[in-house]
């Protein structure tokens, strides 16, 4: 790791100001990817502005069916939230599958979504739940947020502050982990929302998280595992690497979608 200056922000305003005054600075919200990348000297921000200690950014509130999760809420809190479990247990389940206990207590939902790793779990939930990404300056619909691998609609120095969504009628997440990293080789989040069925896939797409309209249409007519079991996904849009070919991932998308629907029942 190259030398860097660490700042612990105590408010959103302070964080934004710190970031504005350091051109080569970066927000860090858990750092589960960024710190490892810095240790390998593949990233060298001059300053790290830590968001995890901003009280306004932490916590989960559930009012009726409306859910708000602060961006600096660690995965362990999401996994263990009794309030969230009553309205959207699939999201608790997803958070409990991320990394290991150390990662779940350091990593945050905002950090993960802002990083938009193509194999991270959270982007599939944000997209399938049709969540609103709240930032320090605006609100972004999930469908407009994820632009590609490690690429989002966030502008320079823009910070996620929270996620909002209406709890779905039904939701499920199924993940096939990479045997080495335990990231998703393929993870599928399905949600039956007021606006219709939504299916989002992480870990597989060559441009990051994506929706599967054919599966959504099938689920709209019948919310059942069999509805998606035979909907094929074109391997041409999927990643191929040491651990999984595109054809294998296409298979896993079907299998995990089926299991996610099963889990939602």
């Amino acid at each position, binding site marked *: 790791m190259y*030398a860097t200056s660490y700042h612990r922000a105590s408010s959103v305003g302070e964080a934004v100001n710190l970031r504005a005054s350091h051109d080569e600075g970066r927000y860090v919200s858990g750092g589960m990817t960024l710190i490892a990348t810095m240790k390998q000297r593949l990233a060298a921000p001059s300053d790290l502005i830590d968001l995890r200690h901003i009280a306004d950014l932490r916590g989960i509130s559930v009012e009726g069916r409306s859910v708000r999760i602060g961006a600096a809420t660690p995965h362990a809190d999401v996994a263990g939230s009794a309030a969230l479990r009553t309205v959207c247990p699939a999201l608790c389940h997803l958070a409990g599958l991320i990394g290991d206990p150390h990662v779940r207590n350091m990593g945050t939902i905002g950090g993960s979504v802002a990083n938009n790793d193509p194999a991270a779990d959270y982007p599939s939930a944000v997209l399938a739940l049709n969540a609103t990404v709240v930032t320090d300056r605006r609100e972004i619909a999930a469908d407009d947020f994820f632009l590609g691998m490690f690429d989002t609609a966030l502008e320079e120095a823009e910070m996620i502050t929270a996620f909002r969504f209406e709890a779905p009628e039904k939701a499920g997440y199924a993940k096939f982990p990479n045997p080495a990293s335990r990231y998703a080789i393929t993870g599928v989040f399905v949600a039956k929302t007021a606006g219709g069925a939504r299916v989002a896939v992480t870990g597989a797409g060559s441009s990051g998280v994506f929706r599967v309209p054919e599966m959504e249409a099938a689920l709209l007519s019948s919310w059942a595992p069999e509805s998606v079991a035979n909907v094929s996904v074109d391997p041409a849009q999927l990643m191929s690497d*040491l651990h999984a070919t595109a054809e294998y991932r296409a298979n896993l998308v079907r299998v995990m979608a089926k299991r996610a629907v099963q889990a939602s029942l």
Partner: protein
Amino acid sequence: MGMEGIGARVARKEDKRFLTGKGRYTDDMVVAGMKFAYFVRSPHAHAKITGIDAAAAKAMPGVIDVLDGRQLQADGIGNLICGWMIHSKDGSPMKMGAWRPLAVDTVRYVGDAVAIVVADSAAEARDAAEAVIVDYDELPAVTTSLAALGDGAPQIHPEAPGNLIFDWQIGDALAADKAIAEAAHVTEIEILNNRLSPNPMEPRATLGIYDSAEDHFTCYTTSQNPHVARLVMSAFYNVAPENKLRVIAPDVGGGFGSKIYIYPEEIVCLWASKKTGVPVKWTSDRTEAFLTDAHGRDHVSKVKMAFDKDHRITALKVDTIANLGAYMSLFSSAVPTYLYATLLSGQYAIPAIHANVRTVYTNTVPVDAYRGAGRPEATYLLERTMETAARELGLSPAELRRKNFIRSFPYQTPVIMTYDAGDYEASLNAAMQAADWDGFAARRAEAERRGKKRGIGMSCYIEACGIAPSQAVGSLGAGVGLWESAEVRVNAVGTIEVLTGSHSHGQGHETTFAQLVADRLGVPISSVNIVHGDTDKVQMGMGTYGSRSGAVGMSAIVKALDKVEMKAKKIAAHLMEADESDIVIENGELKVAGTDKVLPWFQVALAAYTAHNLPAGMEPGLKESAFYDPSNFTFPAGCYIAEVEIDPETGKTEIVQFVAADDFGNIINPLIVEGQVHGGLAQGIGQALLEEVRYDEATGQILTASYMDYAMPRADDLPSFTLSHQNTPCPGNPLGIKGCGEAGAIGSPPALINAITDAIGIKYLTMPATPLKVWTALQGAAMPMAAE
């Protein structure tokens, strides 16, 4: 046996310091004025070095010096060596290319060391290393053994034309060919043994300290055999004469073979300490460990096994190509020859065996011994072949093995080894009973109803531990003897220090060796200290590898204890005015048999040191040493059974049960033995299901250089193991013990692959059996099954 003697389940004495973070590892060592090293390494798999410019690096903050291979060469530091000479079948010696501790003209793998930076901090050393400008002319690279032997392959060392190091054979080719020609059935199969990275928890580290006043070097290092390190560094690398070089291997956090060898970093840090005038410490990070720790396995083999009409094996013929990487590591030549092909008879009476082994240079990390070293390769090959043969012949795997087991001992195989004792059927029966083999069909049917494919597979392994005797291994090309030393020092108040040339890096010597003393003298293990790992304390030793510490190291302690007992009895007889032959040692006391005369152990020890009243002519003191050179290897053996369930939708394998039935001879501490088996099984399961080093064949870049891509087994990848022990005591050593450190890693991979191929009904499946591979195989297998 007593509460703490041989056979007692004593918790490890050393665990208190390990579990409370009080272990003292090489990286924990701090000495005055110590500075830090970072190595400049080749980013290319194969290239000419055309220039090194360190001027900018030397000017950076905190930098003390930057040193390169030409300077090292100018100071007369020698090449790294391979310590076992193998001759090709045409009589020519193996063709060893030069391995410079710092490359001079050519780099031959990604990670090859080029220069060392010494600075005030590790971070400054690393910063400066990035500023060292090395000009390379890239050369074509080759990473697989088959490609390296092909026409037009890049030439890696001028000394080895066509990259062939040696073409060696063992056994009787004519007899094997004749038996194959006359066979009722011949099973043919190709076997790949995947390349592994050893991944000890503690990465390698070294601290080189030069004392100019005494012209003396001290080397702290992560070694399994500090005395061998000193010998090699003195005799071959010209670092310093032995009396001017102290090597200390303190607590070492796992080795698995990878810390046997003397690596460039130890030599270079010692030399750099003299050159810069400061102590120099280097600690590998995990990426460097993937890039530079010696890898294991990487064999490609073709096998023919011949059977007569009664299903008895009549011949085995094996053609193996072993990838040794870019340079010949310390024991790399012995692993695919005398540690591999000599075990190809397995547990079976095979009248004719022939093996041909070619070893090859490639632009990859050097390959050497890794937990099991040659024996896993032999066992995997043999047990995959046996399982395949049983399926082809329509026999149960157990029946085919029973028909061919060796049943009388000693047994001379056609490939050098003389097995001294064993009862292979006892382990087979124990394993089958523990696994409820007969109930498998019902379990498979039940799994089928759940949509799962269930399979069962076995493996009957044999290994040779405690490699010996010295004269024999010398005649086969070994550069060292393979005995062990011990010294038992009884202090004046009766506490005891045992100095051993073995080295403990997780095996529990401090407990088991103390148990031996407790068993013999009746003293508590808390009064016994085991001293190892320091060439200034222990005179000489051969270290720990190949499951040798018990069979060889403890046998040396037995010999020293015999001498201590003899002298103690003489003193006691003198003090109690009894005949020496009437003295017995029991529960920490020396007694005159049949009387109430007794002397506590500490009084006899004290008498030896006060020397006020010793038998006439006896020297004072109570301290004895011994060297033990075994008469033969030991031959642990056993039967492992794996039962798996495959999810056909994803190809994921779940191990639903794993049974290990091992014959390790007599057991000193069952708790430690079980731990060794558990660890070995985890590594074997890792090889079978998860682990593989992969290279980009075009560029020679390693693709699996972190845990993001190299899959280490985790606790949730493993089932609870069902263990049992059978016992045919080893007749060759005084304790009747055989060795247990490697069995798990040797026996488990074929059991798993046999189970998986049973579950999905295919012949070939290469390790690791990842979900991707199993699913892909299932797609292919679906067609013929549909046609049935």
